[in-house]
């Protein structure tokens, strides 16, 4: 079967356009859909020859056997088989596709998700919204006890792992607003005590209101 796939691949390189235009049988279209995308990305004949040379090597390696089987099992023309072999070879030759095929602009998004996942393992961050009255416990350097911050969330700035919330409270007669990065390892616990109904996303108007609106026991 490996040799059959190899020969099919060789004949496939002669007509690169037929490769792309041919459609495989419906049951296997899902399996090959992703392969098709990769194929179309490098559509030049030169590229496919490069791949086919590798397809011979990889077909002999025996790994694409599992993927080539459903393809070769179909009673289609040999072009269908060739596609399968070349596509599989392409999948083989490239290192895990999520590393290479990711667009440059997506890297930050992926890194952010990884950081957030790691932070979530240590502590769960509840759903925070402006208008929530929260109690936050934070670890300070060289201090054993956690310091406590209470207040109302007046703003939530979403920026992946550096999502920050701005918490306002009247302390000793003076209004204080502190911005906390929510996924910081220093913040040990955030609990929502109450919720105040607000009709805004950012409650900066509280600064100019009476102090009693920002006072929380």
């Amino acid at each position, binding site marked *: 079967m490996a040799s059959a796939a190899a020969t099919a691949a060789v004949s496939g390189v002669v007509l690169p356009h037929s490769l792309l235009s041919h459609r495989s049988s419906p049951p296997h279209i899902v399996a090959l859909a992703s392969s098709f995308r990769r194929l179309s990305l490098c559509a030049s004949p030169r590229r496919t020859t490069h791949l086919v040379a590798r397809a011979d090597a990889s077909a002999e390696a025996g790994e694409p056997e599992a993927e080539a089987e459903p393809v070769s099992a179909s009673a289609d023309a040999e072009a269908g088989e060739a596609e399968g072999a070349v596509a599989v070879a392409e999948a083989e030759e490239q290192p895990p596709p999520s590393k290479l095929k990711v667009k440059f602009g997506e890297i930050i998004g992926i890194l952010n998700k990884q950081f957030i996942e790691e932070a979530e393992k240590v502590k769960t961050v509840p759903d925070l919204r402006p208008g929530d009255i929260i109690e936050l416990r*934070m670890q300070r350097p060289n201090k054993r006890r956690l310091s406590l911050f209470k207040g109302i969330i007046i703003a939530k700035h979403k920026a992946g792992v*550096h999502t*920050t919330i701005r918490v306002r409270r009247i*302390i*000793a*007669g*003076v*209004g*204080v*607003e*502190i*911005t*906390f*990065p929510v996924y*910081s390892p*220093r913040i040990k616990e955030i609990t929502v005590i109450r919720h105040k109904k607000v009709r*805004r996303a950012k409650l*900066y*108007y509280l*600064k*100019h209101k009476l102090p009693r609106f920002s006072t929380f026991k």
Partner: protein
Amino acid sequence: MGSHGNNLFGAVSSSVEAVTRPFHCDAISQQIRTFIQMRTNLKVVDNSGAKRVMCIQAKSGKYGAKLGDTIVGSVKEAQPRGKVKKGDVVYGVVVRAAMKKGRSDGSEVQFDDNAIVLVNNKGELIGTRVFGPVPHELRKKKHLKILALAEHIV
């Protein structure tokens, strides 16, 4: 309001965020607070006798003083019987600033007003009590006496 006071003196001590279409909030509530510079009015929060001080010079900082810095100021308003009187040139430590001060853990703190505590040129406090909250930043600047007298450390 602090913002109106600044406009009176014509100082550019707070810049207004460029809001092309101010929808719900007016431009003043979107102000980005900046440094404490010449002609900034500051509240005095100790019992040295002064009530308001106008900054003459920020001792450190290219653009002005931030939280924890020392400034030179002129007393504009003072209580009748106090250790300082109107017109005195005094040094002060900024204990509350309306401008955000970043901390090493990624948090930022800002207060609702600008306030100072009067010190002499050696750094010793003139007053004996401090009112209101003070930030941690004073510990790094070695103003431990102020932290010890404070009502609340943020």
